[in-house]
């Protein structure tokens, strides 16, 4: 469509202000800090230097963390892939008794993750842990410190990182055209053959995508190595965290973060290539949804059932125990011995009445709420611009806003704190590091790419003629947006808002770099509670937090995913 020549009139002023805002935002929040990171690494007092690189290469600890990350990422891709596929097959493909219950169990990772999940596992399997104690009683000389190092990290992360499989791979499985399965059966193919040759190939593109996401998660693992890696198994991100604490070693932290950034960019490029090749579209017009397959071999059937329920226990046990122990007193938590008399509501009372206890919660809620609202508004404006103008500027806007997607949280955080620790012109000469604003900015930045991708999808699935219709009925641009477009995309926007809020509430990776000492957010606070030295009273608190967050997240997940397709736009 031909565009009318742009004429400057005062009605356009808000538009130009918005454009100016985006230019400033992308430059000062997304581009400059990251370029500055490169700069701090390779330039000292204005001169090019390779000193940080040499220092890094000679630091045994740093090199070990690099090596560890490079072992963890591929190992995790394999184990998560195996478990993830199992989960999808158990819940969606095979006819397994109690599949509905199993599915709920497998989906618990959607309602708790990161630091809370790891601390839950540590409580069960760790030194003096619930299960460890049981093992120690049954097996003499059982090493009670068994749950530490590479295998422990791999174990926890294997079960923590299947959320993507439960969302994306499961959707792909449900989209499989069942008539292809019936056709294969009709031609006499065995069950295993159908699974391997007909069903799994359709899932391959989704599987590759989630595997790459897992790989990146493995590379930038934070909570698990931090809490259960022990001295021997520390990975890149915890190392960055250590280095960034002193000014002298900050270039080292930045360099490691750069390494993560480059690796992530490379992997995501591969992923986009795969995505471009496209998904296998079903060519059939009359799709039949999958009917669950009964495993015909009785022995295999029993084994698969046993496997499914063991997985279920692994997923559910931490959740159940966290909930149970959140109602017990400090002594019970310290000894891990449950008795009826130990149950109490005191922990919940403490959280509700003591300022020091509820403050982190309030801090996180406020930060998450503000950031999620800001992201939603920011992205809505951006999407409207991208949708209305198909030119180079709008493409630049889109790619600019997607920058954080390519970079690990740690790198973004390092960039922000090292750039804005001195007055900079493009931040109005304000110092941000150490203030309470910077975490808000950080939260907003990390949530932009996901929000943009989802919101844009909602915008582009809109029928263009809706807008034409509104205009031909006399409505102007903003009125059309407010009355016609916004109500249609609102369910999607709200769902993303909820997910963002959810994700930020327990955030640790970004918060730990930029929280204000007086305003400790939940993730950081829980981590400090989980550290071995703290007393049992505190771990009681961390359980209560975990439960509260599970309730909040569970509610959000239920409204976003659980109610089926209600959030989708009806045509």
């Amino acid at each position, binding site marked *: 469509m*031909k565009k009318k020549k742009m004429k400057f009139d005062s009605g356009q002023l808000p538009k130009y202000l918005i454009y100016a805002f985006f230019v400033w935002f992308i430059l000062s929040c997304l581009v400059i800090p990251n370029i500055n990171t490169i700069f701090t690494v390779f330039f000292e007092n204005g001169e090019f230097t390779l000193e940080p690189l040499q220092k890094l290469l000679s630091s045994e600890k740093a090199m070990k963390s690099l090596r560890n990350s490079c072992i963890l990422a591929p190992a995790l891709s394999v184990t998560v892939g195996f478990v993830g596929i199992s989960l999808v097959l158990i819940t969606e493909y095979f006819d397994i008794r109690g599949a509905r219950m199993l599915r709920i169990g497998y989906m618990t990772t959607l309602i708790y993750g990161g630091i809370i999940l790891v601390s839950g596992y540590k409580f069960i399997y760790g030194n003096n842990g619930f299960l460890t104690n049981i093992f120690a009683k049954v097996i003499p000389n059982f090493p009670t410190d068994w749950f530490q190092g590479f295998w422990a990290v791999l174990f926890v992360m294997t079960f923590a990182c299947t959320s993507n499989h439960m969302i994306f791979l499961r959707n792909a499985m449900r989209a499989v055209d069942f008539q292809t399965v019936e056709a294969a059966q009709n031609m006499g193919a065995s069950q295993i053959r159908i699974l391997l040759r007909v069903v799994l190939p359709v899932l391959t593109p989704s599987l590759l995508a989630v595997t790459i996401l897992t790989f990146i998660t493995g590379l930038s693992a934070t909570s698990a190595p931090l809490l259960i890696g022990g001295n021997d198994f520390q990975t890149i991100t915890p190392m960055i965290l250590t280095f960034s604490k002193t000014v002298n070693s900050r270039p080292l932290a930045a360099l490691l973060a750069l390494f993560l950034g480059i690796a992530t960019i490379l992997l995501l490029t591969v992923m986009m290539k795969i995505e471009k090749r496209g998904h296998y579209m079903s060519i059939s017009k009359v799709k039949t949804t999958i009917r669950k397959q009964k495993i015909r071999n009785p022995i295999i059937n029993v084994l698969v059932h046993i496997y499914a329920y063991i997985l279920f226990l692994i997923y559910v046990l931490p959740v159940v125990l966290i909930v149970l122990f959140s109602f017990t007193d400090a002594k019970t938590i310290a000894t891990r011995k449950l008795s009826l008399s130990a149950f109490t509501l005191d922990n919940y009372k403490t959280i509700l009445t003591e300022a020091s206890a509820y403050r982190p919660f309030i801090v996180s809620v406020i930060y998450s709420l503000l950031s999620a609202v800001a992201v939603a508004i920011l992205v809505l404006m951006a999407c409207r611009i991208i949708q209305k103008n198909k030119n180079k500027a709008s493409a630049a806007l889109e790619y600019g806003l997607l920058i954080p997607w390519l970079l690990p949280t740690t790198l973004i955080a390092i960039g922000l704190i090292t750039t804005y620790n001195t007055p900079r012109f493009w931040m109005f000469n304000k110092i941000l590091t150490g203030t309470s604003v910077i975490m808000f900015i950080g939260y907003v930045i990390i949530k932009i790419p996901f929000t943009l991708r989802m919101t844009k999808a909602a915008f582009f699935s809109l029928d263009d003629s809706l807008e034409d219709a509104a205009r031909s009925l006399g409505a102007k641009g903003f009125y059309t947006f407010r009355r016609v477009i916004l109500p249609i995309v609102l369910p999607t926007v709200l769902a993303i808002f909820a997910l963002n809020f959810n994700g930020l509430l327990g955030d640790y990776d970004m918060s730990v770099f930029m929280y204000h000492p007086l305003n400790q957010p939940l993730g950081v606070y829980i981590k400090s509670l989980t550290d071995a030295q703290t007393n049992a009273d505190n771990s009681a608190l961390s359980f209560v937090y975990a439960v509260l967050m599970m309730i909040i997240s569970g509610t959000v997940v239920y409204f976003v995913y659980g109610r089926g397709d209600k959030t989708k736009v009806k045509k």
Partner: protein
Amino acid sequence: MIKLENIDVCFGDFKALKNINIHVKEGEFFTFLGPSGCGKTTTLRTITGFINPVNGTVSVRGKDITNTPVEKRNIGMVFQSYALFPTMTVYENIAFGLKVQKMSKEDIRQKVYSMAEKVDLSEEQLQKKVSELSGGQQQRVAIARALVTSPEIICLDEPLSNLDAKLRVQLRNELKDLQRRFGITSVYVTHDQEEALTLSDKIAVFNEGVIEQIGTPDEIYNHSATEFVCNFIGDINRLEKEFLIASGLDASNKSIVDVDKKCYIRLERIHVNDVLDGDTLKIGAEVESAEFYGLYIKYILKAGNESLKVIEKNSGRPLYKKGEKVTLSFNPKDIMQY
């Protein structure tokens, strides 16, 4: 009433419309007909204002509206997808344009209800979500929404193409009926020739961004102005020179039929074993196959080297069999040549 004069529209380097001139009269049902990508929808969108022409003017009742924005043109539009707002009820959809005009609530209510009555939407249906209505009801909502603001003109962009065959015919009649009742000037876009022929007062046939012919349905069908039009509308037989001479045509008298031009004849204008008045040309032929449609029979016949399709009304007499020898006759006046 609507005048398009020397309209050119470009999309980048592509010239979508070349020198379009159309005059739609008051109360007329005017159809743009053509294959996909011919420029018919582009022309419609130029009238509604979604597209600005590079050259030329659009005027309504003598007033130049070429640069008037869409929302100020007061031209109603019904979209191919209906473009009903999914978050609003039927009532809210119809009331949308009136609300934009900041009409009072009571006036809106009255107008919506009286419009709903005219298009046979019940009070109960007005409170429903648009997704709960059937295809035909949705179409009526789309029409009601376009008409309720009393536009001077209504534009319809393939409003029947989303429906199944039976409903399409039924709604076609309803549409025509509504247009007659409202007496509103209508511009209709379709690629379906049957729709165009049955609905329209006038048809403009488009091809590759130009208008091939403007005329009444009867003119377009019986006196196609160009070879494209005669091939696009209905089915047709191409007649070779040798065939025409063999059927008794005087090739030297070019005032009746010029055999050096391309000659065409419609299927139903050739008669099998039945010489009508004026059928001065006759030729023997052999039946190759017959397709029985109930209402009519379609024969494929061979006359010399020429293969011909002929439609015969089913009059109840036995069908000609494969291999049967027959005589074909036709009137030279029915031959169209280019």
